[in-house]
């Protein structure tokens, strides 16, 4: 595998506002990267720079070992699917999908039509070729836009919040389809989203951005399990952030909760003595059997259930433990519906993840 899209030192300023500050990112051929971050973090600007619709103030950009920094969008062989889909309202579905081939003068007309129809097949849109965009549902329009983005076999496929205009159910279905389409075509893909579920569900690599910088980058599992800052922990998945005081003991480490409760920590090179922030995922907390064994490396403490929300597949608990408020997501809540039920909760020592990025 080699680097297919290389972004080096890309910076962008609008007036006095720095939108992107020295972004370095390399994407391998066939890789699916999601740029994730809150609105205003610069992810869309970065996408537009790769597309060529925005000029960076600094840095360089290469696609397939060709420097494209100075090329206009129409010469980059990059496809961009807009959040609004940007379908041409006066052209039929087939004409819309054929448009890139027609503009780039690729293939004779009959083959253009054939390829456009094949792309529509690929996104499972059949028998709608002669319809106009306004006659289609949102989901169908989204598929047309997708077909139009892949029809010309771009070197890089850029997707700007492609699923955000769909309802939740359709969005889930499209995530699966998008993933399988990517597996079939192997297109190098960069997707921008503010939806962490979407980022985790689709990506080979999640790139988390904040304030014009890349703050964390890695596989979805890695980024989810081992964030290195409160921002990363909170933005991806949401989590409890605990302020603990770390001390070294003989062979390992332990932490003191605000009320003095001592909990064991798993070894981690990022640990250091003194106050530190830790992440504890909501679903890492489980209810421990009363007085029962919780397992070798698990930590168990007493807690009070303040409220609980039954969510169907799971139950959300608002807990008070160790002098802190914690949120837990458990499969089955405690039987007692009464407020302030006393329970024992447990988590694996390794689930208490240090966040050295913040003190």
């Amino acid at each position, binding site marked *: 595998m080699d680097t297919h899209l290389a972004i080096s030192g890309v910076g962008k300023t609008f007036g006095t506002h720095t939108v992107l500050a020295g972004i370095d990112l390399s994407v391998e051929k066939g890789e699916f990267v999601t740029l994730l971050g809150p609105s205003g973090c610069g992810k869309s600007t970065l996408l537009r720079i790769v597309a060529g619709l925005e000029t960076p103030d600094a840095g360089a950009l290469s696609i397939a070992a060709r420097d494209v920094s100075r090329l206009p969008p129409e010469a980059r062989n*990059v496809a*961009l699917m*807009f959040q609004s889909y940007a379908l041409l309202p006066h052209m039929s579905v087939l004409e819309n999908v054929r448009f*890139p081939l027609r503009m780039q003068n690729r293939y004779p007309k009959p083959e253009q039509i054939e390829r456009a129809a094949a792309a529509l097949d690929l996104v499972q849109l059949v028998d709608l070729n002669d319809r106009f965009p306004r006659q289609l549902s949102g989901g169908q329009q989204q598929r047309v836009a997708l077909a139009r983005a892949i029809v010309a076999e771009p070197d890089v496929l850029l997707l700007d919040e492609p699923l955000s205009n769909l309802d939740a159910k359709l969005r889930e279905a499209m995530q699966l389809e998008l993933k399988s389409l990517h597996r079939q075509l192997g297109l190098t893909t960069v997707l921008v989203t503010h939806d962490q579920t979407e980022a985790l569900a689709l990506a080979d690599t999640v790139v988390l951005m904040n304030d014009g910088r890349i703050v964390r980058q890695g596989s979805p599992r890695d980024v989810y399990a081992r964030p290195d800052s409160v921002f990363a922990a909170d933005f991806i998945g949401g989590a409890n952030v605990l302020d603990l005081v770390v001390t070294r003991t003989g062979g390992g480490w332990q932490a003191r909760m605000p009320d003095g409760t001592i909990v064991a920590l798993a070894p981690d090179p990022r640990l250091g003595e003194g106050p530190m922030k830790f992440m504890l995922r909501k679903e890492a907390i489980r209810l421990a059997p009363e007085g029962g064994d919780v397992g070798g490396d698990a930590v168990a403490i007493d807690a009070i259930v303040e409220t609980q929300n039954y969510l169907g597949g799971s139950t959300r608990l608002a807990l008070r433990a160790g002098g802190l408020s914690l949120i837990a997501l458990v499969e089955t809540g405690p039987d007692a519906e009464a407020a302030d039920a006393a329970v024992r909760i447990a988590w694996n020592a390794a689930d208490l993840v240090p966040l050295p990025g913040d003190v």
Partner: protein
Amino acid sequence: MVGAAPRWMAPVALAFVAAIAFFMLVPLAVVVASSLSSSEFLVFPPRGFSLRWYGAVLQSDAYLAAAWTSIRLAVLTVVISLTLGTMAAIALTRFAIPGREAIASLFLSPLILPSLIFAIGLLMVFSIYGDGPSFTGLVIGHVVITIPYVVRTVSASLVDMDPNLDEAARMMGANWWQRYGLVILPQCRAGMAAGAFFAFNISFDDAVVALFMRAPSVETLPMRIYSTLEFSPNPSVAAVSTIMIGLTIVLVIALDRAFGLGKIM
């Protein structure tokens, strides 16, 4: 939420609509009826029934020459007004031009300015810098008074356009010409049709600018009608007017079929 109208409003509204219909349609009906008169004079109610005045109009060199002048004038006005107005609308809606508001107001000012004053000024300018009234002067005058309509209707189409269309076309490899010809102008079609319709009608119907820019050799149809009415009123005036009404109706229907009037006005 649209609430139900109070009950007492119904008769008032009905009377109001009836009054509008009366004052709009009755004059037209009077004109049409008079045109079918067989008498020598323009009177109402008409006496007898005859199409002779239509025949007279179609055989009158004066009317035919005036009609030809008006048609040439209206077509030229539409072509120039549509070209300039569409370019102005595209520039004003799509680009951050310095002083955009001021320029937009300037383009729309002929709507507010009394056309009588504009016509006097135009005549003076042509008398000072040119040879006085002329067909060219008339075309320029009509372009000025019709351009606001084109700018308005085309801008309305552009505001409805997905702002990403142009960038999307670029990403797909379209060059400048293709983006304008295949993407942006097609979005303006309905607005351009409406603008052209307004421009044609206003130019064809105008009597104010034409009155001042009238040269011995340049007489438009409204001017012909006016002077006939003044010097020898006969039902031919009504016949010409009826033909003009018919032409307008045909244009409206054609426009509605092609674009849907509700969408563009």
